[in-house]
């Protein structure tokens, strides 16, 4: 494996110093790799991303990123109706001096990022007028515009319909193939199987990290969500798909 860009060593976080959200996390993500982080609601997935991007200090251990870490937050309501290009330009903040405005190079980088997500045609439109899937893509473009080494995405495909889920997942793969180290949290084991090289399962009794297809077993997923599942291998369109089928009791 190439030299990892993201490395967690014994990382732990607790809000109150007694109950741990997560502890003893060890994992590494190299350039070109996607790691999916899975865990039940409230297990600290979002906090893990905040610690990795430097927004919070770990209570113990450390997570280091070689280069710039960019965070793609979940979509939330904005106070002002900015245009798409203005949103993406914000990603350039690290490259622009405090009293300076974005210049030509910044606009080019922003337009390039929009081209990568395939929404260059929407640059002059209002961000809040886009669909949920497009807004998520624009937030990803904003992160790319920062020219990061590592990209952290907080449930990028949770609120989207199937078609948009596929679009975002393909984009995640494309970005990794361009040389980024990518970490994304998800509630969908199938999303992990679709794009991730490695998976970090935040189980109550301790985290498991490994190659995605080995880490995601029926037993572990059941432990993760308290719901029995079956893993099926399906052959379609000359490809093999591995799929997790939840055995809903409802």
């Amino acid at each position: 494996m190439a030299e990892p860009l993201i490395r967690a060593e014994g990382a732990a976080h607790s809000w109150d110093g007694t109950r741990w959200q997560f502890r003893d996390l060890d994992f590494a993500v190299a350039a070109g790799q996607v790691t999916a982080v899975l865990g039940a609601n409230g297990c600290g997935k979002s906090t893990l991303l905040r610690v990795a991007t430097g927004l919070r200090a770990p209570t113990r251990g450390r997570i280091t990123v070689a280069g710039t870490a960019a965070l793609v937050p979940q979509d939330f309501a904005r106070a002002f109706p900015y245009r798409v290009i203005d949103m993406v330009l914000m990603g350039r903040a690290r490259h622009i001096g405090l009293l300076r405005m974005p210049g030509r190079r910044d606009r080019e980088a922003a337009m390039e990022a929009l081209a990568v997500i395939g929404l260059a045609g929407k640059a002059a439109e209002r961000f809040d007028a886009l669909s949920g899937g497009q807004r998520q893509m624009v937030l990803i473009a904003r992160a790319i515009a920062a020219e990061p080494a590592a990209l952290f995405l907080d449930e990028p495909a949770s609120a989207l319909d199937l078609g948009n889920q596929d679009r975002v997942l393909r984009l995640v793969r494309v970005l990794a193939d361009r040389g980024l180290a990518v970490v994304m949290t998800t509630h969908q084991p199938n999303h992990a199987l679709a794009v991730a090289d490695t998976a970090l399962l935040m189980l109550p009794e301790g985290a498991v990290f490994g190659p995605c297809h080995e880490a995601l077993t029926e037993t572990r997923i059941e432990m993760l969500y308290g719901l029995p599942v079956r893993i099926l291998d399906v052959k379609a369109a000359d490809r093999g798909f591995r799929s997790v089928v939840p055995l809903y009791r409802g």
Partner: protein
Amino acid sequence: MTAALSVAAARRETRILWALAAVLVLTTVASLGVGRFDIPPGRVVRVLLSPWLAPAEPVSPIEWSVVVVVRLPRVAMAVLAGAGLALAGASLQGLFRNPLVGPQVVGVSSGAAFGGTLAILFGWQHLGLVGAAFAFGLSALVLVWLFASVVSRSNILVLVLAGVVVSGFFGALVSLVQFTADSQDKLPVIVFWLLGSFATADAGRAALLAGPVLPCAAALLALRWRINILSMGDEDARALGVPVAGLRWLLLVLTAMIVSAQVAVSGMIGWVGLVVPHLARMLVGADHRVLLPASALLGGSFLLLVDNAARSMSASEIPLGILTALIGTPMFAALLWRTRERWMDG
């Protein structure tokens, strides 16, 4: 095609900014001619240029005195105050992530008013007056900020209520000062000062206003793109690599300085900082890179026009604070009406 689209949008915004600048220049020239001694705009320009370019018909001492000595300081103060208030209002709206915020809503005006009344009571003048207004204006703003942060960062209602609380507190202190002030001597001064007016304008007061307003406005304009990022919220802005805490303090101090200087020299002039940024946003959109200069230009013209009305509508001057409230409240009500669907959606 896309690049063309955004270039077209940028050109449109630049054209609007130039148009607003032209309106401000024309309003300024016209205002220098308006009054009991009417001078046509063309003649005003000749009078202004006369030290360098002698006109065919020599400028009379009366013309010079009316345009340059009497009206110029007043017009300059109205433009500076209007531009400053609108700039401060637009910045505060971005900073508080809330288009309903203005210098009055977040308490800075009433804090500065208390500082000013205190200064008048103790006979502090010039820098003492501005300093006292600034000290209490900034205190009020910080109190509202802390209150809103502790209770709920994102709730509009909490923010507005925090403003009501702090404004109410400083309002009571203003009343207390008025109650203790000498009713023959200090009280009338305080009352008329609070109502807001440029009637006492002179070169010294104009300089007292320009001193803090020009550098603070320049600093706000230099930081205006960062306000876009701050308006995303603390965590998002930090994730984008912006030093949120320091930048926010800087912006709070700059806006408090502008509003306090305005209150110190011309009393309470409400609604400009709330309504003008709204109007500007309707013209040029939400991007603070364009919104801040547009607000400043529009605010300068707006307050200048209101001041012209104040000094020419009746024999005795109508206090400015009364006029801006009479004009600003229905305008704001109309703006709320326009956006009612968005508010109903929550």
